């Protein structure tokens, strides 16, 4: 029988499609999570007691934010990234044609899709909140801008949300890969986590965690920020591929 010489790109593409349909549930979960938090947020939009200025004009201030949805999306991203490294996911991939590289590359494309989907939907949910607030209260002062008022700003917000979601996915994925290579990394990461928490609570000013935070969040140049994000993702992905390239499967 004649041998087939597959191209890496084709295998990655097939694995990507397979993994996307295999992981339909996490995506559905995110949509449900976001809808629930939207409903909760809009439910909290009650009218607080108005206050009056010296002209006796009544002011009612309602502050709405989609920060909660973004936070939830990032939490989801971390869980999903970790889930992608599970033994079951690996065995499922190796039921069909793949090697370790194509398996990881397909996973990265899944994460990229998840980041796009999660980041975009989180930001857009903010627009839904605005729309809701506008319809309900009529007059609203928007702090953040929309696509029409300041398109660049809006797009930048989208890009930032997507990149952060991707970062959370990839960090969790890398941690998960380490743990798949050797279970003892659970303890190492546990210890690291404790250290991070302590450094946040104990030190004032420039803690290690603070420095990491500023490395990304403190970056004022858009292009530098994007570059930093992408570099970090690429480095983390390379680490995942390198450490697990000798990993035995379906043992």
């Amino acid at each position, binding site marked *: 029988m004649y041998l087939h*010489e597959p191209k890496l790109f084709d295998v990655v593409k097939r694995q990507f499609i397979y993994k996307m349909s295999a992981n339909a549930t996490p995506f559905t979960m995110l949509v449900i999570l976001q809808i629930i938090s939207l409903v909760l947020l809009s439910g909290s939009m009650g009218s607080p007691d108005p206050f009056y200025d010296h002209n006796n004009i009544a002011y009612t201030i309602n502050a709405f934010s989609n920060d909660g949805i973004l936070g939830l999306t990032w939490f989801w991203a971390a869980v999903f990234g970790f889930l992608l490294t599970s033994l079951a996911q690996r065995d499922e991939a190796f039921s*069909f*044609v793949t090697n370790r590289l194509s398996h990881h590359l397909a996973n990265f494309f899944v994460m990229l899709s998840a980041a796009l989907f999660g980041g975009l939907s989180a930001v857009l949910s903010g627009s839904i909140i605005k729309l809701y607030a506008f319809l309900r209260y009529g007059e609203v002062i928007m702090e953040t801008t929309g696509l029409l008022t300041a398109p660049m700003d809006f797009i930048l917000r989208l890009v930032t949300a997507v990149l952060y979601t991707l970062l959370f996915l990839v960090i969790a994925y890398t941690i998960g890969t380490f743990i798949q290579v050797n279970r003892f990394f659970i303890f190492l990461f546990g210890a690291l986590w404790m250290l991070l928490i302590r450094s946040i609570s104990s030190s004032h000013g420039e803690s290690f965690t603070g420095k990491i935070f500023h490395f990304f969040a403190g970056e004022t140049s858009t292009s530098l920020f994007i570059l930093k994000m992408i570099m970090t993702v690429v480095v983390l992905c390379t680490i995942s591929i390198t450490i697990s390239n000798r990993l035995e499967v379906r043992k």
Partner: protein
Amino acid sequence: MTAVELMNVTKKYHKHLALNGLDVNIKKDVMTGVIGRNGVGKTTMMKMIAGFVQETSGTIRVFGESPFNNLTVSANVLFVDDAMQFAQTMSLHDILKECKRFYPNWDHALADRLVQYFGFHLDARHRYLSKGKKNTFNAIIGIAARCALTLFDEPITGMDAGVRKDFYRALLKDYIAHPRTILLSSHHFEEMEDLLEDVLIIQNGKAHFHGSVTELQEMLISLKGNGEILASAAAGKTVVYQQKSGPYTEWLVENTFTAAELDRLKSKRVIATPVSANSAYLALTEQRTGGIDDVFA
């Protein structure tokens, strides 16, 4: 033409030696049975050939390439066992569709007919199939994918007798129509010996015998008769197995008798008969420490 080559291959799991200097050449387009007692390294060998597990030492070549982490090997080799995993969300129908995308030789019409014949519901979930049903479904994938090398690891576990017969028949018919290299491991050698061209007996992590089923069968001859006469008849020959039942003693002896020698044995009232391939296998793999009867002795 060689499809698979293993040269002095060892595999260590922690301290346990699963394979210990295995030397095997599997011919291309031959259906080979991999047999041996539990835990002798059959599965380990097949998972190495599939590229899942890496050899500790030695060399493996599958279609001329080292299989571990090899995309070409993965595309042309299919490993079928009861632990094949598919995503929870996917129905059997979805899985067959994925097979179609991944395997260029996939015969979707055949897969559909087999799935229907064996009474599967296409919207069922793989995970919730019974053990026998799961293995039947996996075996269908193995047949319909028509990979250049297909490895079936204990495919018939849990299948009832009728399904086992049908599976062997389906595999044979498809093999006749599309000859390819097939490895089939099982404990039930007697069920599949007719199906096979070659047998590979693994014992203690090594190849104990590798040749055609006929060679295995003709390696030994069964002699029945008086114990003393047997002893003189088999002088100078390797006696593989001895069993005494009633007044008769049965010996399985290496088959190097000439026609004249056999005639002489006959006149001494020794009954010489061919042995089945399965008896030859059982005799060859008999533990040196004796049989189960010795435990109760």
